Each structure stands twice: as C-alpha cells, then as structure tokens.
C-alpha cells in the first residue's frame, strides 16, 4: 500500500491561509490504513485548523468529508458531495499524491462553472507493508521488473540502499546496512532466506545490470488492458 506522512501543520496552515471555506477531504483506502489521511485524521486536522485559526482571530469554515478512494471517479460522483466541493474555496486533500491529482482532475472535469483548487495535506512516501502496529516499511519501488523470484521474496531494489543485484557490498556489517545501523542489509536477509529455502545456489549466477526503462526512469507509465477498454 501507499504510505504517507501528514505535512507539518505550519505548512498546511500557510497553504490555506488565504481561503475562508476549506474542505478537508480524507480517503478511506491506503492513507486510512497507514493512519495518515483517513476519517479520524480528517476530523482531527479540520478541528486543529479551526482552533488554530480561531486562536488567531481568523474566521474560517472548515468541514471534513471522506470518500472511499480519491484515485477513482467511481467514488466521487455523489451529487451532494460535489455540491459541497463546489461551495468550498479550497479542497485540502489528505489522500496520497495520486488521490490529490485525480481528485483535482475529476472535480475540474465535472464542475465546469468554477475552477476547483485541490492542495495536498500529506507527503506521499513509499509503497510499503504494515510490519507491526504503527510501523510501515518500504518494500517496493515499482521498478517494473520484479526480481523477487530470484531473491527469496526480499527485494534488493527497494530494500538495498544501493539497489544492488549481486550480493551485499563491503558496507554490510552484522546484518545491518552502512547507511543506517537500524536498517537491515537486504542482501543479508536474502542470503538467509535462500539458505532456509535451500536455494542459495541462486545467487551464484551474476545478474546483469538492471534495465531501468520499465521503472519511472523511463518516464511516466501507463497500464492498459485492452480487453477491459470500451
């Protein structure tokens, strides 16, 4: 899932200070799961903004709303909801970057008599897994050419600081990465896993340099399934 962190409060305040009617728009999917932009976070942020601006003597109206997903037209077409969107001066979206952009695009497509401003309340960070309560770690970089079959299910592209394809570097020490003593050396984990699977031989063949073209390095990407297109 996509994870994100809420922007610093002062930054958010600064970005909406010129507006009087603000909608804090939460999302019930990825950012709700990583507890950055779900219903609770939308309510808290709206309340914080009301109190903070109220403290400064500024009259603003802040409402919070929630949609299932901001990255999908299907969940945003409720007429009552769109009426509220139109009434707001700005939509402070606490979805991931995908949601912010898609919401902005969608609202400006369906509401044609005034431009709709959508600004982000989160910094989208990585694709990760929920490792423990309150802990999410990066697991996938979306490189477009998955090598997990060769590395026992541990990704060297996302989890190795250097994205190495052929074993640990000289900086691996006691299973930890030289970048940060709290970061596991991905290749140490890979070797342990392949050993447990009885597949250590897999690391013997030299893996050639990675073709980064399927990744974002090759430009913004698209996925099309022609059989689903109308």
């Amino acid at each position, binding site marked *: 899932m996509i994870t994100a962190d809420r922007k610093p*409060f*002062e930054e958010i305040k600064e970005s909406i200070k010129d507006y009087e009617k603000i909608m804090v728009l939460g999302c019930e999917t990825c950012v709700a799961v990583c507890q950055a932009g779900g219903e609770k976070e939308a309510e*808290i942020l709206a309340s*914080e903004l009301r*109190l*903070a601006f*109220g*403290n*400064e*003597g500024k*009259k603003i109206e802040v409402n919070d709303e929630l949609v299932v997903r901001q990255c999908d037209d299907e969940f945003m077409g409720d007429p009552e909801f769109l009426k509220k969107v139109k009434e707001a001066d700005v939509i402070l979206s606490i979805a991931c970057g995908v949601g912010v952009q898609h919401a902005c695009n969608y609202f400006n497509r369906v509401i044609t008599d005034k431009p709709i401003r959508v600004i982000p309340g989160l910094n989208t960070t990585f694709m990760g897994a929920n490792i423990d309560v309150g802990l999410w770690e990066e697991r996938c970089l979306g490189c477009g050419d998955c090598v997990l079959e060769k590395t026992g299910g541990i990704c060297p592209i996302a989890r190795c600081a250097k994205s190495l394809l052929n074993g640990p570097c000289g900086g691996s020490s006691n299973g930890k990465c030289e970048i940060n003593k709290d970061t596991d050396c991905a290749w140490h984990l890979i070797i342990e896993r392949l050993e447990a699977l009885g597949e250590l031989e897999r690391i013997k063949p030299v893996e050639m340099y990675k073709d980064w073209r399927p990744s974002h390095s090759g430009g913004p990407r698209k996925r099309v399934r022609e059989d689903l297109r109308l």
Partner: protein
Amino acid sequence: MRAAKRVEYTKKLLNEIGLGSERLDFFHIAASEAPMFAETVRTMSERAKELGPNPYRIKLQQETKKDKE
C-alpha cells in the same frame, strides 16, 4: 500504555495549534491513593488558573457578542 501515547500525541497537537501542551497531562494514580489524587487535582487547577481560559473560546465569545450587537 496506549492512553499515555494518545495523551502524548494530543499534547503534540495542542502545541501545533498554539494552545500549549501544558493544558493536558497524564498521571498514574491508584484507587487507594486519595491524597495523591487530591494533590494532583490541586496542581492541575493551579496550572489551569495560570494558563487562563482557552483563548479560542474567548475570541469566539467576543465575536458572538459582536454579531448579536
């Protein structure tokens, strides 16, 4: 433990909005420790007096009064 973490988080939010984290606190007091409870309540009451009422509520009351006039 979770309550303590939630209080810590709420204190951070109070600081963010400028109300100040001193308005909220968390104490461990057993049911049998009545004197400690009384002392804690006294401490928090004094702190509340020093900090004064919620500035946002005062502004809101003033504005409501202005609107009525």
